[in-house]
């Protein structure tokens, strides 16, 4: 097991930032922590890294406890926590040299390799203060990847990147996980990215892990429903309810979630025509990932 966190809890005075979180990852897995702002994603990553001590619970990475003085564990981890940061007066290359030295690497090769991998060659000799947000994010990712870690902890890795950059990073992370066997735990609120990238998802809400499973399982939770648009929703609702259907109204239309209605929309149309309020639109729709996520969070 790469990450083994049991009962992690972090309490800041009267704020419970993370509440009894248990989380495990296996080598080569891409695990995404999904949550709204303030859900506890960054605090979780900081606890996994040993930057903050849990109030309760414990973390081991590669079977070893993590925290101050556990420098051999840190040698195997690459990380990006919150906003990308760099020494503004140093160049991209120098910023990486600083970390390469502190990681005991053969500086020139490690730096040039990671610069090439992240597409930072045109900016290698530019001062970090002149970089765009997207390139600052690339530099932060380069720092995380510099030493070819076995575990990557990435807090919102796609922040600030343009769509092409997001796709590049997605491909890179896929390669790292599937070709090099790197375990990746990332946090995000960009649901579509998570769905494309992660093999497993944990949904955090107010510090609690409210759902965990394969990405496919989350998508499978998406519920189909029949959406009906009519000129007179009140009359149509009454007619359908009289026929024994469960109907809810939202956004001026009618919604039916029962299986029979979803599989036989023609019957619903017939009933409405018979009742004198023919539908102007009738469609079976399915929740997207975002709706699933918001439903999980709101139920929590």
């Amino acid at each position, binding site marked *: 097991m790469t990450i083994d966190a049991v009962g992690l809890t972090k309490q800041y005075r009267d704020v419970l930032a993370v509440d009894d979180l248990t989380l495990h990852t296996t080598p080569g897995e891409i695990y995404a922590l999904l949550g709204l702002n303030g859900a506890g994603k960054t605090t979780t990553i900081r606890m996994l890294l040993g930057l903050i001590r849990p109030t309760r619970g414990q973390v081991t990475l590669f079977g070893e406890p993590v925290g101050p003085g556990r*420098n051999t564990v840190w040698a195997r981890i690459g*990380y990006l926590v*919150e906003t990308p*940061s760099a020494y503004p*007066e140093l160049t991209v290359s120098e910023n990486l040299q600083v*970390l390469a030295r*502190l990681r005991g690497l053969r500086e020139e090769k490690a730096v040039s390799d990671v610069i090439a991998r992240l597409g930072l060659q045109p900016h290698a000799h530019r001062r970090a203060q002149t970089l765009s947000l997207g390139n600052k994010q690339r530099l932060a990712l380069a720092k995380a990847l510099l030493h070819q870690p076995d575990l990557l902890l990435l807090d919102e890795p796609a922040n600030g990147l343009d769509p092409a950059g997001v796709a590049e990073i997605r491909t890179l992370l896929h390669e790292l996980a599937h070709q090099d066997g790197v375990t990746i735990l990332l946090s995000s609120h960009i649901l579509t990215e998570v769905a494309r990238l992660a093999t497993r998802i944990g949904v955090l809400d107010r510090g609690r892990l409210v759902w965990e499973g394969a990405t496919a399982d989350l998508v499978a939770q998406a519920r189909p429903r029949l959406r009906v648009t009519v000129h007179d929703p009140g009359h149509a609702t009454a007619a359908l309810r009289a026929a024994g259907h469960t109907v809810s109204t939202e956004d001026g239309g009618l919604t039916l979630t029962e299986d029979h209605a979803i599989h036989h929309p023609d019957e619903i149309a017939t009933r409405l025509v018979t009742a004198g309020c023919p539908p102007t639109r009738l469609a079976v729709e399915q929740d997207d990932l975002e709706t699933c996520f918001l439903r999980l969070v709101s139920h929590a």
Partner: protein
Amino acid sequence: MSTATAAMWTELLKARRSRLPWVTAAAFTIAAGFGGLIMFILQDVRRARALGLLGTKAALTGGTADWPAYFALLAQITAVGGAVLFGVIVIWTFGREFSQGTAKDLLALPTPRTTIVAAKFAVTTGWSLALAIQTYLLGLVIGAALGLPGWSAAVAATGLGKLLLTAALTIAVVTPFAFAASAGRGYLAGIGALFLAVFLAQVIALLGYGPYFPWSVPALVTDIAGPGRQPPGPLGYGLVAIVGIAGTLGTALWWKHADQDR
């Protein structure tokens, strides 16, 4: 390369690439020049009187225009200017990591956090001592240009010794500002602590308790309070050492153990 050497290299690179070394060097150059100006005024009493207030102030601080007086003045400049500028160096070196958000990149590495803190203190100490030596060397050039009387190798050695002692004491008493900048996670807390210490050093020295207040001791070593005032004794030096050790260890322990949640 050992982790200590690597940490030193990185701290030196960061310092070298910033503007602060130039700013501090310029400040001490101006200060040494100011000391030379005072000697220049004191060399000619009529000229000093013609300059009014500046002449009066020069008479108060230096008295005579010779090498021993000039070396004493340079030590006083190092004590007073160093309290602020050495403090700024320490606050910048530690506080920048939090103000610029780079601290988190240093906290989960194979290089121990305490090694990084030690490297930072080594660089700030070397930097501060270099400024003190620069002040001395500039003083030699300016004093020679002014043709100050009273030169001897013994006077020059005593002047250097006192200046380095003053610098060392000042370096020791600014270490708690590193703790303030770290625990306050930025420049502001360090600057606040610096102002408080400088203010209290003035007030407590005026009240006559300066020899027992560590932040007043470096200036009192230079006889800044004038002849006949009680110089710092072993207790004063001991308190400075305790502050230096507490500041260094406190900073190292804070970096090693404190929750890094920002």
